[in-house]
């Protein structure tokens, strides 16, 4: 049931406990305990909302930044990653295979702000040897959800 519970709330974290327990065919207390355990052991790391900020007046700009680093005897990938992801502006940070070592997702209010972060905060980090910044121009799909108006049910209303 654990995995089924996680799959359910991954797509909708707002289902209340009562409904969750009915959908899973389990007791409410059992589901509550399981959720608590999953939060405590770090399997559930948070509950977030997927927002299409393009529909608002809020100015936001996201960038994907590829980062190359030079590791050293005292400075492995994990340690360098920590130096990078501790900045609040960094929304996500991954170690990746391929031509670059890290991929980070950066959130800023303006392009200038992002550019400033790269030039004055990220690049000067010791061991960072190069970056490539890609501004996100449009988000079509995020976290498995297509960011458009909800789809209409086009089925015939009644069928055998």
């Amino acid at each position: 049931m654990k995995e089924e519970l996680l799959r359910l709330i991954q797509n909708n974290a707002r289902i209340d406990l009562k409904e969750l327990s009915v959908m899973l065919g389990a007791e409410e207390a059992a589901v509550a305990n399981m959720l608590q355990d999953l939060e405590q052991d770090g399997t559930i790391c948070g509950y977030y909302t997927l927002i299409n900020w393009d529909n608002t007046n809020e100015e936001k700009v996201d960038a994907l930044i590829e980062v190359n680093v030079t590791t050293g005897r005292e400075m492995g990938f994990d340690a360098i990653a920590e130096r990078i992801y501790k900045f609040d502006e960094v929304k996500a940070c991954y170690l990746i295979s391929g031509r670059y070592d890290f991929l980070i997702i950066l959130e800023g209010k303006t392009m200038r702000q992002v550019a400033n972060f790269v030039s004055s905060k990220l690049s000067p980090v010791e061991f960072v040897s190069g970056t490539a910044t890609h501004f996100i121009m449009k988000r079509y799909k995020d976290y498995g959800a297509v960011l458009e108006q909800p789809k209409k049910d086009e089925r015939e209303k009644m069928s055998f």
Partner: protein
Amino acid sequence: MRDPISKTARTMQPSGIRKFFDVVAEMPEAISLGVGEPDFDTPWHVREAGIYSLEKGRTFYTSNAGLMELRQEVSNYYLRKHNLTYDAKNEVLITVGGSEAIDMALRAMCDPGDEVIIPEPCYVSYVPCAKLAGAVPVTIPLQEKNEFRLTPEELLDAITDKTKVLILAFPNNPTGAVMEKEDLEKIAKICVEKDIFVVSDEIYGELTYTGKPHVTIASLEGMQERTVVINGFSKAYAMTGWRLGFVTGPEEIISHITKLHQFAIMCAPTTSQYAGIEALRNGDDDIEKMRESYNQRRRFLVKTLRDMGLPCFEPYGAFYVFPSIKHLGMTSDEFATKLLEQEKLAVVPGTAFGDCGEGFLRISYAYSMNELKEALSRLANFINNL
């Protein structure tokens, strides 16, 4: 002028529920729990395979029996899921949905006067198709106390010297009933003893929630040689509009069904067949995802209906719940009509699926949770105001 219509067509009863469907269609504000098809889109990789076949210009007829590649995938499917061997060349036919397969199978197997046993409530086409084949439909009213499974006693009571075919349709539309291995074994034994053939409509076979995979009666001892299994893509892969099904059975029967299919249909749509190959090859995960979601909604629906005071046996298959309204002093038709008028909610009266559906409603859970919640709150409101 002479009557241009044949006596067979003239005397065939149109489905009484059509009128009700038309009323619903004319009511844009009405919401419905009345569909018999999945709410999911066909998985993109399957649609993409159909599109790609069009781009490649694969717009010609296929062989009558269907693309060999697809028949081979059907054969692989039965081996993989049911440990059954069907020769792709001689024992598999690709049809225009399960509907065509039902019609063709009965035409190929029945002579005038042969009796076809049809347990009800059931899908609406079995009785008319039996009649079109010249056969005599003999219906068995299944009982809610047996969870709408067919019992050996009921079957024995219906068998006569003229019985040729038993139609089995589990998981069942409209009841959601399933027949498990132990149930089927008793039926199979009788069919072997009495030399009766089975047309097993297993279109909902991938949608069971017992925790055990669906068992086809063809896999039981002595049954493969006397069973025609009807299956398709509509429910398992959310492909209703593609009109694609498959039928498997002994070469002797399949070759004659194929002959009729060749004259009536030529071949199933080519684009759909290419999409079908992809579905069978890489679609097992899609089925899992959809089944898990249906099962969650099923639990929600059964619980909510019971909380409303509607008795409801636990349906372990398809995507329907079949609650009883017998205690409310209305017929199914009256209930459905009033519910539509007062709450603008459409459900299908059980009588649409046979007289023994009286006192029941078919409620579909091929809807999002939000739609189900809204619909069920209307239903609760209606019942509270009776």
